[in-house]
């Protein structure tokens, strides 16, 4: 197997005294769905925020192997530039542009490319042919995703007026309009009913197969995670406690403990017990 698309090594994120993510290793590949799961507060979203340029990690390396631009260290880029290298995310609490239509949302996603094609608005103001062509191409791409995600009826509606499930789809369509290599989804099934969740699973598998992009998924809905993931990383208290295929994870004792708690006789899991002296030390 060739080198993975994204290689996270030793990622650590500290907020003052709180270690949210502790020397985490993670890989994501093209054409595969990688899931990150863990109990609430385990540090999953922090990993995402580091990866997509919202936090600058305290330590660690986020290596992206871009087919066109070579190896890029994401942690060294300015936050907004990460998306330009093909790592794009959605948000746990949907962040659309509510007063803009669905179509406009998708065009904003193509901003970087369109801005260049409009020669920073000069060609656009003059209405030159090169710009008109670029706009037509952008519109075609937006139209493709609108149809693909079944948004045709609402394409000209303001995004803020749509129902929750539809807004989720718009957010995924918007992310796909940036032409990503790696799509990072932060709890995409939150707030969806079981039927919508199943449809989302099919959609993600379809996108992965059709466009060969990698998908990195944070999710609490185990039916979705177990159903579509190729590889699962389990995080608890900022550390990775397990990694493997869905079948392996399902059987893993440490994972079960992290989610369901401890039986009475063993008070703390070994991983946590290891940390105890450090955590308790200063307080005592």
């Amino acid at each position, binding site marked *: 197997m060739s080198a993975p698309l994204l290689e996270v090594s030793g990622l650590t994120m500290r907020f003052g005294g709180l270690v949210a993510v502790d020397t985490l290793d993670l890989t994501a590949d093209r054409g595969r769905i990688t899931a990150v799961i863990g109990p609430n507060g385990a540090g999953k979203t922090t990993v995402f925020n580091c990866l*997509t*340029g*919202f936090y600058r990690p305290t330590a660690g390396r986020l290596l992206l192997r871009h087919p066109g631009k070579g190896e890029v260290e994401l942690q060294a880029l*300015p*936050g*907004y*530039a*990460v*998306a*330009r290298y093909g790592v*794009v*995310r959605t*948000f746990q609490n949907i*962040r*659309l*542009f*509510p*007063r*803009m*239509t669905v*179509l*406009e949302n998708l*065009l*904003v*996603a*193509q*901003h*970087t490319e*369109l*801005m260049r094609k*409009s020669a*920073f*608005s000069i060609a*656009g*103001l003059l209405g030159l042919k090169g710009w008109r062509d670029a706009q*037509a191409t952008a*519109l075609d791409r937006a*139209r493709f995703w*609108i*149809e693909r995600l079944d948004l*045709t*009826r609402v*394409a*000209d509606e*303001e995004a803020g007026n749509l129902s929750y499930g539809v807004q989720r789809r718009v957010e995924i369509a*918007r*992310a796909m309009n*940036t032409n990503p290599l790696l799509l990072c989804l932060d709890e995409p099934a939150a707030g969806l009913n079981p039927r919508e969740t199943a449809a989302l699973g099919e959609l993600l598998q379809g996108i992965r197969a059709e466009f060969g992009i990698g998908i990195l998924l944070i999710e609490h809905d185990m039916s979705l995670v177990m159903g579509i993931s190729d590889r699962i990383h389990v995080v608890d208290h900022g550390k990775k406690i397990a990694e493997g295929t869905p079948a392996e994870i399902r059987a893993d004792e440490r994972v079960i403990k992290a989610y369901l708690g401890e039986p009475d006789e063993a008070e703390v899991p070994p991983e946590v017990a290891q940390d105890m002296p450090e955590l308790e030390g200063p307080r005592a």
Partner: protein
Amino acid sequence: MARTLPDRLKDAALAAFVALLLAVPFIGLTTINTDVGLRVATRWDWVLWAVAIVFAGRILFGFAADAVSTRRRRTEARGPLVSEAAGRTLGKAFAAAAIAFAVTLPFLPFSDRYVLDLGMTVLIYILLATGLNVTVGLAGLLDLGFVAFYAIGAYTFALLAKFFGFGFWIALPMAGLVAALFGVLLSLPILRLRGDYLAIVTLGFGEITRIVILNWQSLTGGPNGVGGIPRPTLFGLSFDRRPQEGQQSFHEVTGIAFSSEHRMMFLYFIVLLLVLVCAWAVWKLRRLPIGRAWEALREDEIACRSLGINPVLVKVSAYATGGLMGGLAGCFFAARQGFVSPESFTFIESAIILAIVVLGGMGSQIGVVVAAAFIVLLPEFAREFADYRMLLFGAAMILVMVWRPGGLISSREPTLTLAGGKQPAESVVRGVGS
């Protein structure tokens, strides 16, 4: 909603009490001119009347407000008065009619110096508000010091003319560029600010600019201002009766009898041209990636970042574009007056421009035109009411905001639509039809 009678009486009594407090000094005491000087007289009967009127008025107002809100709830249930599509057609028709009216205004029979002068004032405010609309309405970045750009544009022309003898047409783009540059400078320290803090810093920027102009005596002449600013020329033709040496005048070349109104008409057409060009540019920019990025920034900055948009560039460009138009307006203002002084650029100007943008409906270009006309013309029409005209003006503004909280035109026009796109796909047609 319907309140009980004792409630209403209590409410009215409170209002009457406030009226009493105000009426004692304002109405109850008055000064009378006598031979030996001023003497204070009392008018307690007037105070009593005022309090009684407020008491009765408050009760009536309560009933009226209830009636209005009940009716509004009924209308809302029925949906908006005009559909969005119809609204857009209406908007286009209005824009065409407004442009046609503006172009023909100087030739209409009732137009005289006064009308043209008023027209120019309205157009200057439209130009200013069009610029501020980019910053506030589209990009959602509050600016309480917009008058600074107006002042910078005006002083750029005034000083270029004073020290280097520049004419209007060369100074115009330079005034715009200098103001845009100051827009960039202003935007840099406030990139991370929002809300109240942004308001304070921009307010400070406006005041600092004015105070610097006021105190930099050697350059700006301080409170004495800069005079002798040259009039604009039409391809070198002046509009004076006796042009300066080496210059030809309009009436000599065209053979039309001299009239001082020609110069007014010429100035009017210059500002009309500026407004049309700027309005067109904003209309066009809104449909370009930069314009959509402005609006996206207003909607959600974090989402913008996640899509690879650099928020710094978007903010800087929004302030620069707004500043540019403010500078153009300032340059024209200097040319029209022939004289600039810091007094013209006080905070109240910023407030009026912002009021035009908010009253028109944030981001709406037609709204800006209607609101500018409203704000400039209303005090003029209310001149007959002398001292009470600003009171009327304030009351009218309150009424408009009660009637239309989102501004006169609060619906947002999409920059492009799939259904109305250039190449509608089959599925689109189906989607709309079903």
